[in-house]
């Protein structure tokens, strides 16, 4: 769970104005069918979607003033719609037993509730990059979001973004997804090369990470109702990998790790630095385990959102000298495995196929759920192999933090 360090605002009636900016024409993540940007459900299979555009509102007074009308699609209405829809021919497999999921959203064999698209989704933009975003067990909805993009050549260029919605703010599930997608699109489109020197290129990418955080912040604000006195907010963690260059940045307590394989010489490292009370206490000399389990440990000092005092990410860059995994995750994972070396051992134990990042991402999410699944879980992974640089030539450089 992520909570802002500033005092939480009082609850108020939910009001959302969905309007995430998603570049490409959207498709159903479950069955692949083309869907409208404002659709709440896939026409083909009935999967719940996260609308990426404002749906046209019905004129409340019979006039044609639909577009000006305020949008008030609350979660509960959408949840009811899921139960009401009976006609969709649903045939996706149950995550629990492999049986068929019925039109009512429950397995026809074991009755397990199939997670909605927002509650559990996977992304595999390229064979060497994957992300899994999961509601976990204890939380009622998934306020985490991942958004990843990659060129198809292994090791060429990829963007990993994780945003963790602040659970005490309203509609942070909508906002976090919009933020993650906006940041991903911003980072993937910008391919700065700097002045040609390695340091200059890393610096240019770092500035594009800052721009991506700004774009994500704008998306959060755009998804906050004008009259909301409990503005949506979320964290931000992003990493860009180009060959063996990694540039990263974060706001809040979502993290970027570099996890070399166990047989590699390099040590595993937590690249990002949390903006959290726990991190501040660690910096003041409190042991990590004590700090991360102490009072207010999860309170964050920085976040994205309308009430954010500062959303400029702390950025850094690193050159990889080993084969391993670049990992961006939310606290739903690192709560159970905070130390980089512990994470490295866990990944070694999971013995994942090094050519299948989706399997490892799923295994990590499953593992976190087995530990209790107390929070939403996001895992985004890119595979790095020494000497495999993909199509884009990469120079060497050595900046640890900018």
């Amino acid at each position, binding site marked *: 769970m992520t909570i802002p360090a500033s005092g939480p605002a009082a609850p108020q009636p939910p009001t959302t104005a969905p309007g995430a900016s998603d570049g490409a024409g959207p498709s159903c993540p479950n069955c692949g069918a083309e869907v409208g940007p404002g659709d709440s459900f896939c026409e083909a299979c009935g999967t719940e979607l996260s609308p990426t555009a404002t749906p046209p509102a019905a004129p409340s007074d019979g006039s044609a003033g639909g577009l000006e009308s305020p949008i008030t699609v609350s979660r509960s209405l959408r949840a009811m719609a899921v139960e009401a829809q009976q006609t969709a021919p649903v045939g996706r497999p149950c995550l629990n037993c492999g049986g068929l999921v019925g039109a009512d959203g429950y*397995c026809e064999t074991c009755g397990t509730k199939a997670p909605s698209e927002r509650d559990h989704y996977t992304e595999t933009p390229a064979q060497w990059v994957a992300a899994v975003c999961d509601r976990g*067990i204890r939380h009622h909805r998934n306020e985490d979001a991942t958004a990843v993009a990659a060129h198809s050549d292994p090791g060429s260029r990829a963007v990993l973004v994780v945003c963790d919605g602040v659970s005490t703010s309203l509609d942070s599930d909508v906002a976090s997804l919009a933020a993650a997608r906006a940041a991903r699109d911003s980072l993937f489109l910008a391919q700065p090369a700097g002045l040609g020197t390695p340091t200059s290129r890393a610096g240019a990418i770092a500035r594009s990470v800052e721009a991506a955080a700004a774009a994500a912040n704008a998306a959060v604000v755009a998804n906050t109702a004008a009259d909301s006195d409990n503005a949506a907010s979320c964290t931000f963690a992003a990493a860009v990998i180009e060959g063996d260059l990694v540039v990263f940045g974060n706001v809040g307590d979502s993290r970027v790790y570099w996890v070399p394989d166990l047989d590699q010489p390099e040590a595993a490292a937590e690249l990002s630095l949390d903006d959290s009370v726990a991190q501040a206490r660690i910096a003041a000399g409190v042991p990590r385990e004590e700090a991360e389990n102490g009072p207010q440990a999860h309170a964050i000092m920085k976040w994205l959102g309308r009430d954010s005092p500062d959303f400029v990410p702390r950025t850094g860059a690193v050159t990889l000298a080993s084969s391993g995994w670049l990992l961006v995750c939310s606290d739903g994972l690192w709560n159970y495995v905070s130390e980089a070396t512990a994470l490295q051992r866990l990944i070694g134990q999971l013995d994942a196929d090094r050519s299948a990042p989706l399997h490892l991402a799923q295994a990590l999410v499953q593992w976190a759920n087995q530990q209790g699944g107390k929070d939403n879980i996001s895992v985004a992974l890119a595979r790095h192999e020494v000497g495999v640089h993909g199509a884009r030539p990469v120079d060497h450089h050595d900046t640890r933090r900018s």
Partner: protein
Amino acid sequence: MAEFSAEVYQNEFLPDGGTDVNAIVTMSCTGAGEAGRSGGGEAGEIIIVDTSGSMGRTKLEAAKIAAAAAVDQILDGTWFAVVAGSHQAYLAFPAARAGAGMVKMDPSTRFAAQQAIARFQADGGTAMGTWLVLAARLFDSMPMLTQRHAILLTDGENHNETPEGLDRAIAHVTGKFQCDCRGVGVDWQVAEVRRIAQALLGTVDIIPQPEQMAQVFAELMQQAMGRGVADAQLRVWSPQGAQVMFVRQVSPTVEDLTNRRSEVNPLTGGYPTGSWGDESRDYHVGVRLGAKAIGQEQLAARVQLVVGDAVVAQGLVKAKWSNDDTLTTRINPEVAHYTGQTELAEAIQEGLAAKAVGDDATATTKLGRAVQLAAATGNEEATTRLRKVVDIQDVENGTVRLKRAVDRADEMALDTASTKTTRIKG
């Protein structure tokens, strides 16, 4: 077109390790239309009248008026027949020896049927099994009928047939037609006639005075004609490894359907509900699941109403495991209400059965418990009927004394009405 809807009342939250899910599912039907006229096929009605010697002149004359009143209520175009029953069954109308045993109602067949009824004579004994078997044969001769209903009138015990013989006859006709049963006077056995009515998805009640018969029969037939949905099946799906502990109709009357399950598929059972008019019926479903981890959610049952092959309404019974005591200890008022009403019906029936065999101690305890439950669940009708059989000393503790002199009709009315439930006051 008939429209159906389903509503589910339950507390879906289970504590850690909890396995049992209880839910009340209300199935409602509107726009049912009239029997045989809503496109669902043709309807048939058979009127079965006791013409045994015990009926005597007064009751038989009243029965003739009642049968004629019922015939009056049968809509034109409905197939019908009239059966006169004693120790054997006679087809009183139509005069058919072979082939179709029923005719279509029109002004001339209505007149002819009433003339046949007027010729009834009280003679012979009582063997209700033979009446039922003849009615089934008549319906069997009309294979195009999709809705088959009978009303049966009796006045005495089933003297000329063994209980086993009656059971065989009931088993033979079950599923072939529905039957509402009425006993006139106080010389018939409630338990015996209830067996027929329950197996044939009908009601049972007492008509204390002969002159009340005509009105009762006219109303029964009106109700039957108002059931435009010929037949519906209740289906209960439960997940693999789960156990359906019970399926009960709990409103308007308590009927245990658990043992009437027919397998639709390994996970789904079908339970007969007969024809539907514009009405609501409540079902209590109990399912035992394997416990899951805190925070997990799963479906415990899909409760559906099926007409033909179409699912016309579905309610979802859910289970969510939680460590929040304020959620898991909440008692759903509907479930509690009907659990009490089901126990009330049992307490009344067991109490009266004990009283009948002279076990006053058990009778006092059971009827006392009934008084307590009737008050707790707000069933004032049951309280009123109980007052005629016991003197109530303390409602809250269920302390009662058996009345020394009880009108037999009041005792039978308490028995026949024991399964009637009240809806929760909301």
